[in-house]
């Protein structure tokens, strides 16, 4: 039941196709990396996300051409409060990579990925609905699971499980 410690040193992980591609493009876009439980996480600088995804999608050696999932984690009351999590899959190479963007609590906003993967549409709407993160450039950013007239964002940690009474 022994877990190997997480690797956070980028030098040890630079062989990985996703990291190699991103460092070759713009090393300052990577804020950090983590390799834990056989899963790779790359922390991407907020402004570079869209371009980084476009690059990873078109990479010739290992194209991460499939967007599996977008979600968010709320670390309230810490700052930066939100972590938006992207899971990419490479269908030809059967590889996964997780991209993360950290956001502060004051009006959190991020560029939409709908121009790269139209399938990001519903996922981003869900994150907007449940966490209140705005995606700029999204074609139809409205609530998807909660009623249109709902107040608050239920998946935030300061939102009580029973809801507001």
């Amino acid at each position, binding site marked *: *039941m*022994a*877990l190997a410690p*997480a690797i956070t040193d980028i030098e040890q992980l630079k062989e990985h196709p996703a990291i190699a591609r991103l460092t070759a493009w713009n090393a300052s876009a990577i804020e950090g990396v983590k390799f*834990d*439980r056989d*899963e790779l*996480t790359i922390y991407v600088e907020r402004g570079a996300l869209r371009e980084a995804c476009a690059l990873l999608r078109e990479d010739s050696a290992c194209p991460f*051409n*499939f*967007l*599996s*999932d977008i*979600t968010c*984690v*709320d670390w309230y009351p810490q700052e930066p409060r939100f972590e938006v*999590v992207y*899971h990419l899959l490479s*269908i030809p190479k*059967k590889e*996964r990579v*997780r991209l993360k963007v950290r956001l502060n609590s004051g009006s959190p906003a991020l560029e939409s990925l709908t121009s790269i*993967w*139209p*399938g*990001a*549409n*519903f*996922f981003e709407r*869900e994150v907007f609905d*449940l966490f209140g993160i705005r995606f700029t450039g999204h074609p*139809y950013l*409205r*609530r*998807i*699971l*909660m*009623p*249109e*007239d709902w107040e608050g964002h*239920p*998946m935030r940690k300061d939102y009580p*499980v029973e809801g507001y009474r």
Partner: protein
Amino acid sequence: MAHMTPTPVLEPGQDRTMILNMGPQHPSTHGVLRVLLEIDGETVVRLMPDIGFLHTGIEKTCEAKFYQQVVPLTDRIDYLCPMTNNLCYVLAVEKLLGLEIPEKAQWLRVLLNELTRINSHLVWLGTHAMDIGALTVFLYCFREREEVLKMFEMVAGQRMMTSYFRVGGVALEPPLGFFDRVRDFAGYFPERIDQYENLLTGNPIWLMRTKGVAHMTAEDAIALGATGPTLRGSGVDIDLRRDMPYSSYEKFQFKVPVSQEGDVFARYMCRVQELRESVGIVRQALDGMPEGRYKADAPGIVLPDREKMKTQMESLIYHFKIITEGFNVPAGEVYQAVESPRGEMGYYIVSDGTAKPYRVHMRSACFANLQTLSKMCEGRLLADVVAAIGSIDIVLGEIDR
């Protein structure tokens, strides 16, 4: 969804079009899906799915439960494939814990998972055919589904909300006679698939309603995040059971059916062939079922045997502690994906080192697959919308969570 404001609002783009509201109460929307359509005569100009009517905040509820208490919540997401959801969740927690599972438990999980796939595909086939107008198939499919549900009842005591998989293994040893019953079923089921195919595959009405209908290219399917038979029906060869194996799937031989056409018929053929492959996997699991324990030897995480709990103080203490305090999971995060009957079912779990998950996110296959509906239907006939919805195999419980 809305109880006061009618949302979303679709305005007709031109003078000659009109807005048609389909659902949420409509026999072919399989639950409560509302589809807004802008139509020009019989042709669909725009299509917009409206979801959320079944949203119960399961992800939020998970954050207030112990890890083992989340298992019963996971079957309620997708009531047609409870075991697949159980499996995905327990695999993710086991990955967080770094827990090794005995081989017998892994094989049992594979066996039940494939029975679940058969169960789910049978409901899909029956209702999909009924939507299109072939009423008979429904009765045939539910005859076999009943048998699968009885087998679930044997192992789990429940027909639908099984919660049979636990962190560290399965809940109980399968009862006497279970394997014989499964073997019986695996023996006659391929013949039954022939019966369904006799009713549909060569049927000219079925072909007219499905061939060339709701077409989608591979590029569109990938860009829209489609997975499972919806993606494989468009010619993309990926199946997580084969390509990123979990729970000893690498020890089984099976083919991954792929069709190139990308229409309703292609997706139908993929699923029907998957039924045959699943029976093959069930047979392999029965023949090669290893001996050994059905749960891991991990006191403090796995509940002790009932007998030991009543006779040994140590076990009683562990039992009490697991039930009242749960077990702590080392901090970290994992994304575990399995191939559910509908596509990639993924659980993203974040642990902060306590006994309750900090965040549980379910990547639902239908949620992403539903986005392909507009692509499939726009510019085509209104009557084909029903065929397209059926061919995605949606389960609204999983979409809304």
